[in-house]
């Protein structure tokens, strides 16, 4: 975990309100697992004041670069989207516990299910899984054809199924519809997206899996207890009945926390 200024080396709008930004700095090399996030202070300001937790979409260790994909939702992300190349942001990270991939073996098949801006962290995960020799099937859910991003990038790593809520491309409906239609077997799944989607995914798959949660955060390091969720069962060692999304998560074993 480090705190450093990282320089913006690329930034573009890849879909309506969806931006891809690349940050350069030594911190990039300290990323341990896919699914970790960084806490970004977009500028020293009183509005916005707090850092923004952003997931990591890709890492280039050699170039010391992190790529993030985010949706412009409020003042912080709006301001980030207006930043020019060469400008810096202050980054705290990498933070949190990411997707565990140690148990995945060569030729295992992994299912990745992402919705909207929950998709980006699955990309670096997919790359790592493919590197291990695993097969990756990805289901990506969007509102409409115009909102689609990262499709071709995922296609280079394995089979991709697109779902859209209006049926303008791919399967009409939600990611869970594509899960039901799936004929392939898989040993583990990984998912990230809105809470409703995560709940539905968790309910429709029996294989073991991992879910990545998002929540409004304060400190990002586990001190302020702003981003907690309930554990399905109290921790045997500590007696704790909750988990901190920022430091115990954002990735949890499916069923471990109540979504």
């Amino acid at each position: 975990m480090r705190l450093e200024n990282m320089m913006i080396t690329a930034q573009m709008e890849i879909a309506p309100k969806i931006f891809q930004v690349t940050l350069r700095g030594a911190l990039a090399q300290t990323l341990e697992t896919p699914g970790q996030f960084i806490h970004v202070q977009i500028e020293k300001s009183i509005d916005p004041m707090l850092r923004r937790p952003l997931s990591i979409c890709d890492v280039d260790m050699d170039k010391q670069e992190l790529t993030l994909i985010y949706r412009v939702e409020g003042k912080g992300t709006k301001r980030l989207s207006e930043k020019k190349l060469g400008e810096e942001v202050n980054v705290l990270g990498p933070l949190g516990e990411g997707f565990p991939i140690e148990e995945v073996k060569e030729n295992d098949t992994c299912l990745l299910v992402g919705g909207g801006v929950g998709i980006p962290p699955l990309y670096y995960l997919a790359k790592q899984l493919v590197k291990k020799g695993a097969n990756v099937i990805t289901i990506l859910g969007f509102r409409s054809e115009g909102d689609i991003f990262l499709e071709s990038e995922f296609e280079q790593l394995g089979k991709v199924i697109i779902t859209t809520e209006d049926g303008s491309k791919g399967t009409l409906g939600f990611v869970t519809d594509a899960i039901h239609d799936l004929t392939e077997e898989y040993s583990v799944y990984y998912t990230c997206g809105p809470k409703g989607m995560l709940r539905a995914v968790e309910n429709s798959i029996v294989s073991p899996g991992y879910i990545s949660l998002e929540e409004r955060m304060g400190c990002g390091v586990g001190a302020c207890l702003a981003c907690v969720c309930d554990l399905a069962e109290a921790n045997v060692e500590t007696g704790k009945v909750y988990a901190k999304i920022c430091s115990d998560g954002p990735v949890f074993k499916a069923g471990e926390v109540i979504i």
Partner: protein
Amino acid sequence: MNRLEVNLPGLVMKNPVMPASGCFGFGQEYAKFYDLNRLGAICVKAVTVERRSGNPTPRVAETPGGMLNAIGLQNPGLEHVLQHELPWLEKYESPIIVNVAGNLPEDYMEVAREISKVKNVNAIELNISCPNVKEGGIAFGTNAQTAADLTEKVKSVSKVPVYVKLSPNVTDIVEIAKAVESAGADGLSMINTLLGMRIDLNTGKPILANRTGGLSGAGIKPVAIRMIYEVSQKVQIPIIGMGGIFEVDDILEFMMAGASAVAVGTANFIDPFACPNLIDGLEERLDELGFDSLTSIVGRSSALCNLNHVR
């Protein structure tokens, strides 16, 4: 001589800076960033008799110059704190203040009695000002008599000095400060957060699941300064000042207003090194302003005003 040293009941502090309760957990998260011995004192999160799960999320909402929080006193409970959190802090020399909360006076008394027996606890901070719980907290802090009664009860069982943390959500904070002083408080902490609300335009509902929350951050500093200025002239006990400290000059402003030490809250979330950075900048600023020591500036503002008044 250490120009930054301040001495308060139960607390020998090498500098006036401590993290504010609720913003620093029990220290373990920030110990990953720096040596907690750098701190003048360590004020840990509120402790209640039973474990508390706190409020539903979202628990934070941002606003220009500040943030609203509604954590709801989530903590692992007295027993766990006694068994795990406080022993972990034993390796540090900085004095420790434990924030104590509860639903009923008996709850406060039980926590204070047990916590104050622990050898590395130097003081307790009596939380009569949390705005985010349905029972206890602020319910004890908005009426002078209720606040005084609770202070007296907790004083009767505590083996360490008691600092009463006051709520700014009152018409006359001086009245409450004087009442708790008369009831035996050794010091005051002020201010807790100001009650606020934000609404999400997309849903039309409050952003916080608790609907209301406590406002902290730079925006509340003038309220804190005004209250400390007023209270410090009417009580003899020392004040730990807090509310929007982000810069070295903020610390000096709090002390000139009448605080003897300060606590840093929200700033930790933006910069995990906020406390040590502030401590590092203090001496240089004292030199620039031409002051020998920090203690010499405490209450300077009211002293000067009163002097002018006499003339």
